[in-house]
């Protein structure tokens, strides 16, 4: 710009005194502390994820045995009438024998001969769930009797553990539930394609299973139960929370009473969740007579828990809308309700939705209040479709994790970690949605 040139100084005019050096050092130290704090946090996260992923990813793959099963009439329908009412008399124990026979034949046919392998050893590698699977299939289609069908059935949890590296020949020698001969059989069957490790879609859809069949346990009922509860929380907490915040923020007079309410709402947000469980038990089950273990009660309890979070988030985003918007609307002749619903609320909506989603994510991971209302339970029946299904017993995702960590069979460790991965995935999706909504629709003034 200008032609006037200054002679360049021979050296910087800035003299670094002691104080400057000290300030710079202090700043460097502070930055290092901050970086350290983040690194500690990241390390903790990495350890958590690594431990969950290493022990849990196996749950998404499952060992299946593929074999032809002859459904003999003599064993499964002695009357020969194909009448399901009569055929129901054959229990899963009877079907188990049919499957054991089919497996023994398949092993013999494949020419597998292993020293010290008994018939019990061979039948022991099949899950007890297989009998239930075949029985259900036959009862829903009695014409299958007399035919030979190709089926994939679950392998026993220990064999599954062997394929995933959890069980080894050394541990099997000590284990009373599996023998090294069975592991050799599994190897031989793998070679011949009778046994394989496939994707386990049932983990996400099947119901819980008992201690004797960890390989069959799934999250189906828990995911449904959690979804039903979130539905109730959303349907109740969002309208109530938004209505309460709009009233408090836009219409209520500022006096002692509203101050008191405000303090109480902030206080409620910090109340331990188990307290809401006790409240839910007293009000919804003992007083209102709602059923135990039902998502409706869980949803109501979690609604109470989530309300303060939503109210606080909604009020903050209503406050963030500049007063000039309201004044302009009022100045043009809008009523106060019109000003709120036509102008303030749409501008505050991204913040409200973000708060709601974060509140829902918190509710999704909550276990303690569900403990008291009977949802920490062994539930195998899927709840019906809403609204009736809201009153059927169901489990919930965090509760299922808690249940599985208490089981005796080591295979449930993998299931529990797998369930944690599923829960984390849900939370990640919800939190990402909250961030996206905020990024996309938030307005700054």
């Amino acid at each position, binding site marked *: 710009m200008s032609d006037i040139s200054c002679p360049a100084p021979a050296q910087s005019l800035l003299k670094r005194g002691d104080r400057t050096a000290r300030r710079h050092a202090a700043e460097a130290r502070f930055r290092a502390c901050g970086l350290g704090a983040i690194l500690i946090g990241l390390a903790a996260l990495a350890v958590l994820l690594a431990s969950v992923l290493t022990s849990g990813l196996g749950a998404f793959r499952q060992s299946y045995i593929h074999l032809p099963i002859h459904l003999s009439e003599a064993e499964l329908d002695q009357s020969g009438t194909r009448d399901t009412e009569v055929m129901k008399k054959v229990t899963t124990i009877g079907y188990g024998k049919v499957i054991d026979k089919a497996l023994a034949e398949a092993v013999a046919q494949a020419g597998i001969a292993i020293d010290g392998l008994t018939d019990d050893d061979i039948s022991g590698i099949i899950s007890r769930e297989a009998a239930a699977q075949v029985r259900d299939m036959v009862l829903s289609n009695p014409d299958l009797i007399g035919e030979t069908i190709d089926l994939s059935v679950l392998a026993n949890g220990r064999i599954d553990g062997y394929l995933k590296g959890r069980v080894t020949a050394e541990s099997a020698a000590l284990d009373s539930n599996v023998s090294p001969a069975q592991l050799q059989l599994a190897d031989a069957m793998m070679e011949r394609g009778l046994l394989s490790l496939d994707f386990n879609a049932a983990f996400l859809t099947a119901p819980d299973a008992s201690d004797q069949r960890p390989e069959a346990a799934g999250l189906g009922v828990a995911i449904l139960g959690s979804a039903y509860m979130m539905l109730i929380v959303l349907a109740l907490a969002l309208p109530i929370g938004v209505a309460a915040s709009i009233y408090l923020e836009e219409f209520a007079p500022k006096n002692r009473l509203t101050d008191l309410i405000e303090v109480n709402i902030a206080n409620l947000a910090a109340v331990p969740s188990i307290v809401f469980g006790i409240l839910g038990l007293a009000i919804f089950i003992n007083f209102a007579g709602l059923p135990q273990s039902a998502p409706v009660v869980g949803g109501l309890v979690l609604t109470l828990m989530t309300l303060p979070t939503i109210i606080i988030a909604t009020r903050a985003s209503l406050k963030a809308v500049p007063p000039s918007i309201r004044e302009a609307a009022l100045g043009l002749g809008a009523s106060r309700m019109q000003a709120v619903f036509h102008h303030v609320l749409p501008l505050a909506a991204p913040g409200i939705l973000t708060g709601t989603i974060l509140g829902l994510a918190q509710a999704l991971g909550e276990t303690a209040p569900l403990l008291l209302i009977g949802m920490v339970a062994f539930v195998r029946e899927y709840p019906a479709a809403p609204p009736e299904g809201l009153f059927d017993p169901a489990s919930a995702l965090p509760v299922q994790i808690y249940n599985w960590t*208490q089981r005796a069979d080591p295979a449930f460790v993998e299931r529990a970690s797998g369930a944690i991965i599923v829960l984390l995935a849900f939370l990640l999706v919800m939190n990402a949605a909250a961030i996206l909504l905020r990024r996309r629709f938030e307005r700054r003034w």
Partner: protein
Amino acid sequence: MSRMTPATSALAILAVSATAAAARDQVQVAGSSTVLPYATIVAELFGENTDFPTPVIESGGSSAGLKRFCEGVGENSIDIANASRRIKDSEKAVCAAAGVTEIIEVRIGYDGIVFASDIGSASFAFTPADWYKALAAEVVVDGKLVPNTATKWSDVNPDLPAQEIMAFVPGTKHGTREVFDERVIEQGCEDSGAAAALENLGADAGKLCTSLRTDGRAVEIDGDYTETLARIGSNADGIGVFGLSFYENNTAKLQVATMNDVVPSTETIASGEYPVSRPLYFYVKQAHLGMVPGLKDYAEFFVSDDIAGPGGPLADYGLVPDPELADTQAGLADEALMN
């Protein structure tokens, strides 16, 4: 306005809630965490082999289960309480006060309590007296009551390995603890002559026998056996108290100790040779039998020969079959009440 939709659906939910609370079609069970695995095995088989829905089973401990059982009669109370001990008279009184007067007691079999340590550590052959001497808070030495100072198992019995005393025993809310106190600690107090010595001192032997030391060598586990297993995993000197079925599912990690030179197994427990075992029960509300579909069928299915008898799935899992199962079945068929 679109905002009205969630509000309306909320109202609809509340409206349905008034009507749907009327009928319950599945059996509800709560109680002992020891009985839980057996109950879930039975419930699963019951659900897949009958037309009734699978019962809903909660755990939480014998005392908690019986407390809920005694809350009253009706759709909102549980039908069955699982217990790893008999119902107490005080609990019966609570039940009676709430109108639960007709109770059917069903004994499903026996469960052994075993002592196990890490598979890599030394093996142990205990007697109840060893456990008393190792874990008692105060012992009689030279006619005086002094705090227990034993630090190694070899201090209490020279035949035992010189391993630090570190015992993980069930917390007091567990039914298992009662059996442990009675069959091991009190028995050991008697056997070692400590009970007589305490009597001679004029002390309250009953109370002093069962008070465990609090210097960190007897650790009470309020969680379940998986917590005990994890503690042993991180402390190779630890010896834990487990149920037989839990041990049998984890034989690759645990080695079991003998008691009075008897190895615990379903056979030695059934024959009574292995001293530490207890019966398992469930309690049925008679008033619910006609009200909840499948309740009686579930109870009868539970104690049928195919399920609870020798060779059945429960025995496979570690339950010691009850030799008097036929009497239990007959009592249940007649709906014989507990007196």
